[in-house]
């Protein structure tokens, strides 16, 4: 089908009301940057989901990172977004002025060289992410063991998507279709989302990230029924996923209950180091309590797809990318950030 025909169809669509959740934060970014909401009929509504790893991390986890960063001879190592997200009161950036040691890295494996060249100094890796990111943490633990490196630990808040998507679907009966997370699918495989579509009796489409791919996938979701699903990202997503990555993760991690901002504790929606590798864990268990730095912050409802970012009373007023009140406005995968930057309605 020609893309022009798809565009024409989506703009003129007059069928049953469609509410499609884009689960992945990178999909939210691509949809916003491509202006896709403006290309759709009023009868097709897109809502963002819980697919931004920094956004779904609870305050007690940030608080624990801050506590560790203040210890002597200890540095917290993290990706950039996490530095600006506030816990109960402060962010990692706030406490660097108070003597905390925090280092931002782009490639997680850099921690191996850091550890080797700073024997006697402790490094804590802020290990957040979904199925796509957990394999690199497993490889890091593998490398630590092989090289007998003792001065690195992980503070984990690792999440898995299926149970979270199930929770969102059960809590929101308006959702008529899911854009499945594309890069998570690379690791888990397409079959996982076929099974979910059947369980929930809601269609799933695994989509790529270009404007054409997204429009085609939205088109498909207006056509699919009940437990149907489709893989429209076949260039990189196979039915079984990346088996080697799955096996590497299973070697070092086990499922656990996950604490999600705005959604509470969801059974079996997290991953934590297995008991035999606890020496590499910096105290990740029981980091479940959450609070909002600004009590009016609606990040929880945004993450669960209950409201659009611009329905939050703080959005665009006291909460902006320059002065974010909640994680969804901080992260480059956060839906508030992308709604704001792209003036998405």
């Amino acid at each position, binding site marked *: 089908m020609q893309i022009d025909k798809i565009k024409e169809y989506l703009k003129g669509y007059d069928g049953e009301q469609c509410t499609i959740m884009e689960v*992945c*934060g*990178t999909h939210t*970014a*691509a949809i916003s*940057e491509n202006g896709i909401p403006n290309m759709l009929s009023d009868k097709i509504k897109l809502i963002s989901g819980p*697919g*931004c*790893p*920094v956004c779904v991390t609870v305050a007690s986890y940030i608080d624990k990172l801050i506590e560790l960063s203040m210890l002597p001879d200890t540095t917290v190592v993290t*990706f*950039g*977004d996490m530095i600006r997200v506030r816990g109960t009161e402060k962010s990692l950036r706030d406490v660097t002025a108070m003597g905390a040691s925090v280092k931002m890295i*782009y*490639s*997680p*494996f*850099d921690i191996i060289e850091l550890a080797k060249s700073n024997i006697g100094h402790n490094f804590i890796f802020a290990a*957040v*992410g*979904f199925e*796509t*990111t957990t*394999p*690199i943490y497993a*490889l890091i633990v*593998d490398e630590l063991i092989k090289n007998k490196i003792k001065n690195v630990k992980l503070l984990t808040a690792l999440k898995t998507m299926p149970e979270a998507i199930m929770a969102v679907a059960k809590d929101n009966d308006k959702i008529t279709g899911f854009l499945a997370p594309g*890069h998570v699918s*690379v*690791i888990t495989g397409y079959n996982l989302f076929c099974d979910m579509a059947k369980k929930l009796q809601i269609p799933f489409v695994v989509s790529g*990230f*270009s*404007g054409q791919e997204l429009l085609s996938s939205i088109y498909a979701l207006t056509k699919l029924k009940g437990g149907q699903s489709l893989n429209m990202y076949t*260039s*990189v997503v196979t039915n079984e996923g*990346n088996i*080697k*990555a799955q096996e*590497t993760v299973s070697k070092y991690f086990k499922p656990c209950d996950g604490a999600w901002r705005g959604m509470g504790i969801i059974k079996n929606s997290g991953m934590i180091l297995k008991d035999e590798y606890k020496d590499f864990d910096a105290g990740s268990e029981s980091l479940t309590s959450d609070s909002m730095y600004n009590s009016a912050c609606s990040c929880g409802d945004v993450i669960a797809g209950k409201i659009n970012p611009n329905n939050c009373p703080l959005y665009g007023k006291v909460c902006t990318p320059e002065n974010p009140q909640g994680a969804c406005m901080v992260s*480059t*995968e956060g839906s508030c950030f992308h709604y704001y930057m792209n003036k998405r309605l």
Partner: protein
Amino acid sequence: MCVAAPGKIIELNDNIAKVDYNGNIVNANAGVVNVSVGDYVLVHAGLIIQKVSKSEAQQMQELFRELEEL
């Protein structure tokens, strides 16, 4: 962190690949995908998660270039 973009492997030593993104070179771990020099790959948070066909990679590179220009 969760942005997986395609790049081309220009060097491979053990499991560490140098990946070229239109002139920006980054290190990526090749521990969960069998790759060779010249392959186009998706890299997520420093990990190669999948090989990509060349035409697909070029198409995606073009997309990312366009996004940067917006």
